[in-house]
């Protein structure tokens, strides 16, 4: 299986505060890759750096064979890389439909807007019911679904998900993770997911990396991590 995303020796942070140190990992095409770790390990910073929201101080990010290191965030959806930020970050005063429409803002996504809107509404029927409702009035689960749907509007090849289950009830979190699994298994979407619910995310992931104090501490298959009690105790606090 070829790699969709390659991260090499990536270092990044906020102004004078370095957060990531020489992070390196690969994401195979069509796989679900989980990034797990304690609070403050640098998971969100890692996704934000890959998605172009933070400029790396060194290292390289390659997406589909193309060097995207330091590329502007707004250019990446057009290349097929979409980010679902933590908490969804919907535009609260816009309707669900308007939020989704903005997901297809990339010039190459605009011609397929109407068709993609139908596909996304088919995949998330609840959004069809709520299409004229302000996004700020959605429930937590609906909000997360809308955020994922908005990211799918640009027909991405790689989806970066930052804690999609944060603030959701266990049942709703399970539903969101089911959707992620379906997108990967049925639509062949490559997914990188950062999650606090370690056991649940390892159950749906193919590969996993443990981030500890801004460095990749361990890498392996999700099954290996689930089976290794010592890893869970040392790095995941399970």
């Amino acid at each position, binding site marked *: 299986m070829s790699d969709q995303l390659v991260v090499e020796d990536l270092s990044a942070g906020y102004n004078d505060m370095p957060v990531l140190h020489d992070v390196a990992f690969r994401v195979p095409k069509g796989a679900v890759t989980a990034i797990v770790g304690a609070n403050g390990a640098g998971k969100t910073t890692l996704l*934000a750096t890959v*998605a*172009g*929201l933070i400029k790396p101080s060194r290292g390289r990010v390659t997406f589909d064979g193309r060097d995207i290191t330091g590329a*502007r*965030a*707004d*250019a*990446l*959806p*057009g290349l097929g890389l*979409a*980010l679902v*930020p933590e908490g969804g*970050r*919907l*535009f*609260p*005063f*816009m*309707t669900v*439909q*308007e939020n989704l*429409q*903005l*997901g297809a*803002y*990339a*010039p190459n*996504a*605009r*011609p397929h*807007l*109407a068709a993609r*809107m139908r596909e996304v509404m088919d995949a998330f029927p609840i959004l069809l019911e709520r*299409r*004229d409702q302000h996004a700020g009035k959605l429930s937590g689960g609906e909000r997360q679904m809308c955020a994922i749907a*908005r*990211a799918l509007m*640009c027909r991405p090849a790689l989806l970066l998900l930052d804690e999609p289950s944060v603030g959701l009830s266990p049942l709703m979190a399970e539903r969101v993770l089911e959707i992620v699994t379906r997108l990967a298994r049925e639509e062949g979407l490559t997914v990188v997911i950062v999650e606090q619910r370690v056991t649940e995310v390892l159950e749906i992931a193919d590969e996993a990396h443990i981030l500890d104090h801004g460095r990749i501490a361990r890498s392996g298959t999700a099954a290996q991590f689930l089976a290794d009690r010592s890893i869970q105790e040392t790095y995941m606090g399970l």
Partner: protein
Amino acid sequence: MSNREQRLAWRKTGGVKTLRHELPVTFGALAALGALVAAMSGDSFTLNILASTFLFAGLATAWNVIGGLGGQFSLGHSVFFAIGAFTVSNLYLGLQVSPWLALLPAALLSAVLGVLISWPVFRLRGPFFAIATMAMTEVLLSLSLYFDRFTGGSRGVSIPFRAGLQNMIFRDRLSYALLMLGFLAVCLVVMAAVTRSRLGYSLQAVRDNEDAAAAAGIDVLRTKLAGMAISAALTGMGGVLYIMYVRVADPPTLFSLFDIGVKMALIALIGGIGTIYGPMLGALLIIPLESWLRAELGGSIPGANLIVLGFILMLTALFLRRGIVGGLKRLWSRPGAAKGAGR
């Protein structure tokens, strides 16, 4: 796919409001204001107040493009107002160019200046952006006093009275009221068009969350600059109309932070920031009230109008977070909400 086809694809999905949905309300509101002007056609004092009201309604609507829709709380819009005024005064007095023709270069110059001075300032967010725009006003005021060849320095500029449509100078107040109503109409239509365009949605996305907007593929800086250019261009046009109306103005008046820059923002805030008709409603409340207070109390209690304005702003902040329009919407939706709750 051409840009036009892309715009059509954007609209074809349905469920998203377009300019077509807004125009009937816009023209309805303008017709009502036109009827008000007609009813007051014999009363010079009221027509004067109406002219000021429409001018500030237009200016606050122009500010709202970047301040309300884009969330960039500029307090330096008096700069574009002054640029418009000085452009027309120089073209009219120096080259005998009709003020009607001068509207275009005034708008263009304001837009270009808006882009140039906003470029570095847009890196700042929230209160830092607002402070930077205030500082920008002071810098440009000092420069305008220094370059007195164009601005008249501390003496200002004076437009001689040569009545005539081609000179945009009229003997009667009715013509000025209609002129300012026309300006408000242009600002409202532009605001409605921007709000319901892809640029408008991008501005709102940038306002709500810049990182999420960028992650959705929106070029944040370009969006802000486009919003600022439109807002500055309209404000510059307002400056043209203002100086042809008062015919005497100096840099401290035109660059005034409170009387122009802050006032535009306050009117939009009180009326309903980010809404199409909020600034118009804000101006309809504030300007006549301020004029009345100044006339009634100005002699006995100087500054009383400012106390009342401050009080209105406090009440708005406490009870009408989304301005008059937000309050009206809440009132409008209350019976429906009650019905929904009962079901």
